[in-house]
């Protein structure tokens, strides 16, 4: 029990805290970056995308025929498609909500939608980050939000990629809804521009792999950064706070 008189009561630590711990915590090396809507969106979106990828793949290559009942009473493929469409609606509504939050949320909530390509300093940081990933740089920089490389990935895979999947997906959905529906009326110019709908299926399908590849890189980079960088990653998307492992200012 070494309750120091200098420590403010709000920072009171449990009995096992050492002087060093106290010194570290006193410097307050955590920042609140991801607000609740951003974190909520992240995990709902992740779940929706996993459902979309699994069911989407099955829509292209259906599971083996099941004969449980007469066709009238069996709806296996129908449920797979329903899950795809339901997850699609959740993802789309979430995406719009996320765009809304970019307007009202904090600075970091805007990063996914906008690359500051006009800033020289940003490009310098991109280059630094590329070198860090190429093992040419010994120490990574500290970032409160996304590092610039992650920001580029977010922008192209999520903002652009998801927009692509939503546009092509809803165009496919409009075909099912049929001519005369509001959705089809909206999608009609796009469908006519595409021409043969088989192309639409193919590019929507390719889009899935684009997103799968992003997920692989994203998860790897998040875990690696969590271990090797100077800040927290995975837990930040759970708690919202970014913690730093050192207090060097650079």
């Amino acid at each position, binding site marked *: 029990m070494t309750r120091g008189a200098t420590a403010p009561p709000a920072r009171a630590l449990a009995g096992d805290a050492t002087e*060093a711990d106290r010194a570290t915590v006193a410097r307050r090396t955590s920042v609140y970056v991801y607000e609740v809507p951003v974190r909520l969106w992240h995990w709902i979106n992740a779940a929706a995308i996993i459902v979309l990828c699994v069911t989407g*793949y099955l829509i*292209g*290559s*259906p*599971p*083996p*025929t*099941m*004969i449980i*009942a007469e*066709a*009238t009473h*069996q*709806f*296996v*493929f*129908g449920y*797979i498609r329903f899950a795809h469409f339901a997850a699609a609606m959740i993802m789309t509504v979430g995406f719009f909500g996320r765009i809304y939050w970019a307007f009202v949320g904090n600075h970091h909530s805007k990063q996914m939608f906008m690359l500051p390509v006009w800033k020289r300093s940003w490009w310098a940081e991109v280059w630094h980050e590329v070198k860090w*990933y190429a*093992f040419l740089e*010994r120490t990574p920089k500290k970032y409160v939000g996304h590092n610039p490389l992650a920001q580029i990935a977010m922008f192209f895979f999520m903002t652009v990629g998801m927009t692509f999947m939503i546009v092509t997906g809803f165009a496919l959905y409009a*075909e*099912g809804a*049929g*001519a*005369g529906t509001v959705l089809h009326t909206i999608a*009609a*110019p796009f*469908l*006519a521009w595409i*021409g*043969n*709908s*088989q*192309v*639409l*299926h*193919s590019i929507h*399908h*390719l889009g*899935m*792999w*684009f997103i*799968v*590849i992003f997920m*692989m*890189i994203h998860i*790897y980079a998040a875990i*690696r950064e969590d*271990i*090797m960088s100077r800040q927290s990653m995975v837990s930040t998307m759970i708690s919202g706070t970014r913690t730093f492992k050192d207090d060097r200012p650079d």
Partner: protein
Amino acid sequence: MDQIETFYDVMRRQGITRRSFMKYCSLTAAALGLGPSFVPKIAHAMETKPRTPVIWVHGLECTCCSESFIRSAHPLAKDVVLSMISLDYDDTLMAAAGHAAEAAMADTIERYKGEYILAVEGNPPLAEDGMFCITGGKPFVEKLRYAAKDAKAIISWGACASYGCVQAAKPNPTQATPVHKVITDKPIIKVPGCPPIAEVMTGVITYMLTFDRMPELDRQGRPKMFYSQRIHDKCYRRPHFDAGQFVESWDDDNARKGYCLYKMGCKGPTTYNACSTVRWNEGVSFPIQSGHGCIGCSEDGFWDHGSFYDRVTDLTQFGVEANADKVGFAAAGVVGGGIALHAAVSALKSAQVKSQSKPTVQNEEA
């Protein structure tokens, strides 16, 4: 210019009775999806309106559209429409031949300037100044331009005229080109299919002859009444699709039970046509009913979209002989390998850094 006969005059001259004529009118109304109240309207139009002349030209094609047309299920419609068309010009069906035939075309164009309908079967090849298709001693593209100049509207029969079809498939050596890319200043109705369904053809032409206007078209220029639904939307095997009951290989038990042909590459989900409702050969059957998937014959570039027997097709239209899954899986494999390698190097590097900086770390913790 002599007085143009009415449709009714022509029919009576062809020996068609009034009774048959009324039957034809109700049949037409039914074929076009119109209510019985339209029957007297059609009859009135046919009795009073001068008939619309039709010129029917043939470019690079196999004549399957004509073959389909003359097999229309409603013989009356076929006979009437055919006899009216053959009055003007159709180099395949008309009695005249050679110079007499070409003179008939020139005569029709001269007499009915701006009033006739030009029906085009096949398409013009543009390479080598159009030398790959010569009709009447001239490249077809010239004849097409000549006939189109004074036409009121153009009907593009079949996949050839509408989209190019097999002769326009990659690499398209003769540069076969669909009609709307050659004639750009006339209203064009696309009636795609290889061939189009006979009843669809007679339906479209009867509509235009009787109502003297174009049927309502979709954004690709196809008549909405026949092309606004996919084969898949009205396919009688659809319950098996929703159930997840598929033909897994030709001649398996599921094929005998008539399950869905999705896994056998059926293009019903991407093909707009009336086959699953109107059917073929007097409504007897259609490809899916006969146990084979739809090959998407009424869609743009259907030869260039991979195999007829794959559902997830090769991306041949992008010059890739692999489908989205193969491309994606390979890319994911490469990225996965890259990640594994990167992770290994990262682990090595950080181990190195740790062992080098051990003293300072201990100092900090001390």
